[in-house]
């Protein structure tokens, strides 16, 4: 395993240096250094029939030294490549935020990042052109991955050696913390029937407290808002490697549908990694606009921004299905949204005793 890791590090490093060599050759041929990237906008993602996920389309944009801006970007790219190559050589890792601060130490002021957004975007650019994931550059996000709870035993390679952990028996109430690079995890054995991804921490805690994972052999994954890559990746691996159905349980508002969208179809920002991160077979549990009507849930009115978001989802290729069109139009019609916790208006156990079993049964999961 360790040697495998070394090989992947070496490959990542080579790819980075190849990229630098490409710029070098462009200079040498009297050409203007440039790199070409797919255009990362909603209008340039398309459904890939083979993998059932959304990937970038054919439109590209070029980062070129032709302008002062472009030249600065490429200068920063060169510095970042050097930094990443050295990091791999030394087998160290750093966070995206650290990269931003590290740039401050570079001798050349022109190469300093002006904000973290810039350094994050550059890492994404490098991911795309080098076809190496940032995890393989040893770059990790600041926020930790989410937590698992359920009848699953895994082995994780840590800096301090391999650890075998059972995600129900060996962990506390909080569950097992997913590492930043979930590809370092090996699944050992499990009794999991399905994977239940939950948006809010409150609802996750409710399910755990009510023993939902135990009762239904569910692996509860806490998404914690827009899910981190690691969370999406482990979900994908659980589905692909263990052949488990995946369901997503969120609030009933447009932003939560996007959370589902990024789990199931991939996000616009990381569409180049959709095949690696997205789980197209994932199903949406709720809260559905239909549930608001059926269960007469306590609601908030839709704000203008909610309405805009819903309307933009109607035009989002990821949501162009009969199911979503119907639900979104219903929501625009009733003009209301509801949180997961709204189910508590019918009692604390309502969600585990009534709502989820009914929905999961409908969906053919249990």
């Amino acid at each position, binding site marked *: 395993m360790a040697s495998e890791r070394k090989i992947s590090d070496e490959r990542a490093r080579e790819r*980075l*240096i190849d990229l*630098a*060599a490409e*710029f*070098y050759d*462009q*200079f*040498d*041929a*009297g*050409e*203007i*250094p440039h790199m070409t990237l797919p255009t990362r906008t909603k209008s340039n993602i398309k459904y890939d029939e083979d993998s059932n996920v959304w990937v970038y389309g054919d439109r590209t944009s070029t980062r070129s*030294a*032709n*302008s*002062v801006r472009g*030249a*600065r970007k*490429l*200068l920063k790219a*060169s*510095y970042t*490549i*050097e930094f990443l*190559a050295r990091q791999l050589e030394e087998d160290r890792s750093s966070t995206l935020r650290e990269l931003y601060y590290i740039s401050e130490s570079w001798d*050349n002021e*022109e*190469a300093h990042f002006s904000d973290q957004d810039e350094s994050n975007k550059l890492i994404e650019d490098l991911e795309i052109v080098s076809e190496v994931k940032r995890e393989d550059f040893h770059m990790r996000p600041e926020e930790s991955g989410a937590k698992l709870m359920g009848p699953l035993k895994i082995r994780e390679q840590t800096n301090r050696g391999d650890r075998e952990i059972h995600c129900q028996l060996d962990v506390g109430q909080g569950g097992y913390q997913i590492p930043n690079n979930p590809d370092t995890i090996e699944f050992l054995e499990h009794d999991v029937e399905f994977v239940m991804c939950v948006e809010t921490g409150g609802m996750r805690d409710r399910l755990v407290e009510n023993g939902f994972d135990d009762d239904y052999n569910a692996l509860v994954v806490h998404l914690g808002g827009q899910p981190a890559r690691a969370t999406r990746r482990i979900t994908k691996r659980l589905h692909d490697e263990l052949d488990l159905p995946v369901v997503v349980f969120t609030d009933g508002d447009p932003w939560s549908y996007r959370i589902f969208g990024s789990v199931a179809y991939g996000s616009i920002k990381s569409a180049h990694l959709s095949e690696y991160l997205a789980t197209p077979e994932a199903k949406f549990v709720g809260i559905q606009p239909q549930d608001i009507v059926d269960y007469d849930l306590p609601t908030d009115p839709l704000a203008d921004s909610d309405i805009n978001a819903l309307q933009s989802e109607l035009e989002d290729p990821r949501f162009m299905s009969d199911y979503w069109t119907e639900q979104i139009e219903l929501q625009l019609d009733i003009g209301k949204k509801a949180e997961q916790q709204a189910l508590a208006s019918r009692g604390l156990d309502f969600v585990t005793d009534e709502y989820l079993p009914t929905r999961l049964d409908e969906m053919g999961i249990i």
Partner: protein
Amino acid sequence: MTSFQSTLGDEPGIAEELAKGQREISIAEFFEKNKHMLGFDSGARGLVTAVKEAVDNALDATEEAGIQPDIYVEIAEAGDYYRLVIEDNGPGITKEQVPKVFGKLLYGSRFHAREQSRGQQGIGISAAVLYSQLTSGKPAKVTSRTQGSEDAEYFELVINTDQNEPEIRTEKTTSWDRPHGTRIELEMEANMRARQQLHDYILHTAVVNPHARIELREPGLDEPMKFERATDQLPKQTKEIRPHPHGVELGTLLKMLSATESYSVSGFLQEEFTRVGAKTSDKIHDAFRDRHFGREMTWRTPGATEADDLAAVVEDAVANKGKEATAAFADELVDIVVGKDRIAHGELVTIVENVAETVGEETDTSFGETVRENVVEALWPALTDDREGDVYAIVDDVTTTQKDDAGKLSMARSIATQFAETTGPADRATRDDVAEFVAWAADRTKEREDETYGETAQENIADAVWSRMRTVSDEVPKVREVADDRDVARDLLDAMRETDILAPPTDCLSPISADLVEAGLKKEFDADFYAAATRDAEVHGGDPFIVEAGIAYGGELKSEGKIDLLRFANRVPLVYQQGACTITHVVKDIGWRNYGLDQPGGSGMPNGPAVLMVHVASTNVPFTSESKDALADVPAIQDEVELAIREAARELKSYLSKRRSLQKRRKKQDVLGRILPQMATKLSEVTGRPEPNIDGALGRIMNNLTVERAVEDGEVTLTVKNYSNTNESPDITDIVSAEPAGLDGEATVVDLDGEWFVKWNPEVSSGETATLTYSVAQDASFDINVDGVETEKLTVNV
């Protein structure tokens, strides 16, 4: 006054008493009291004005004699006064003329001439003399030497203000080192508070007179201010032109009429005015007739159906002639008359005369004067039977459909009545008469039909009626008669003004020309950019004029505050009353932001390091006052000033935008010139390869022309790559310390004291590369110089 009134009857001698206090005022006396009108309102200003008048005269005199002006101005303190000396190298003034030129107001050669000149009224220099004598009591000292004469004449003179005549105090011959020229020395009460205006005046004079050499000395200057000649080219000699018919006033016209030797108005017009030939003269005559005699109304003729009735009328009127002859006469006459659409009384008279002649001859009958008159008298009422219907058609034609028919009928009836009752049998009326008829008709219609015909409606009807009236063919009055009658002269003047006449010729003007405007600016202002424009001649009030504008920008010009505006009229700088001048008004109204200059609020004087000069040349410059400081707001001149400024400003705009884009380019080049090598260094570190050559990339990014030299074993290769999108032809000079060999004729080699200049001028199209190779001894050194390409667009790597 009341007390006089009460005693008027008692003292019949009061008018005589008052008359004792009344006497003629001499012009000199008048100006003594009104110095400000001539620019002598203060000591500071008086000095500037005196210099100005003397320098203007000097320039006029030298130019007229075809001499390149060399003018010396000196101001020195002399006790309580200032002494002013102005010397020129002009043709000099004859002994007889000197006292009059300097000692008599309103004496000059210019006043009656229609030609561009600096001075016009002959007031300027004598006013300076007058001012000096009034303030210091000292006479003017004038030295003048005409070309070829042994000695110079020296005068000391004052003006007798009662008589406006010179009073010579001293007169003698003297020697003078100048071969010809004039020198005037004046002492006056003055001060140097207007030093800036004085300097401006001299500087600006130098700008618009690049052919002149001017030197100024004054107590505040350590070194004399010297302005050298920038050109040997003297201004074009102007020709005097006769007045243009559009440019004379009634008084002038009357004077010209009484002075002319012509007998007929036609001869007078063609002799005394410019641009009047036989054809134009005829046009003026017609317009004159319309005014003087009025036109005759034409009426619709009855149709052919009434020919028999009309013939009967004619036959009745012709008494005692043979029956056949009478019938032939009547048929012929009526045939012609009904064949016409409309007919005027005068026309009928002519037709009757003609028919009487021809038919008389054919039938061997005499239709004499009496018969003719009788026929006209009988036939005219028959022809004009339906005046009302005729006028109704006209009124109906030009009146809006909203008006009541009853109103229109009333208008038509009233107008027809006016013709019938007031114009006599010939229905003659002037345009004014017609307007009165219509106004009267409108009053009556308002009264009777309660329908209002407003001014526009009345005007339309009057125009329609007038257009159907016919110019008479009466002989116009002779010159003598016109000269004797103001009203007739007024009619002639109106006719002249109304007639379209070709613009006056422009050889009476001498513009500086765009080239010399630029040369003048270059000479006195150290700027980065110069532009100038000269407009074609235009006319205002019969006087031709030409407007020129020039702009200097950047360089050493002061960049804070407003731009400098230099105003000139007939090459004379205007240094006072900038705010009152039409040039200033025009400049302030232009949106300078469009031309790349800062203009707070989008109007007013723009800011920035610029000098704007505007020159108006005309045979008659319209000043706001006699002190000639500011041009009056004449729309025709304003338009041309604006167009001239805009023309020059457009060049400024393209210069500034080009400069800005070059600045941006330089900035980009600076940044990229820093970033890209750093990137290249980093890349070579990462890849472990030597540093790449980035000049090609840099040249390509900047759309540049790159010049590179490679030397290998004494083989020199110069490579020029053109990355721009235009064709370039750089002038490349490679200075080599050893003799180059193997040049294939594309380049030339010049040997200069052991250095060889390899000159190469390749045409390199966009995207192409040109190379030059030659061989030299191993240890040769090189020095390359590339011209013909803007530095910002050039990357030299040798």
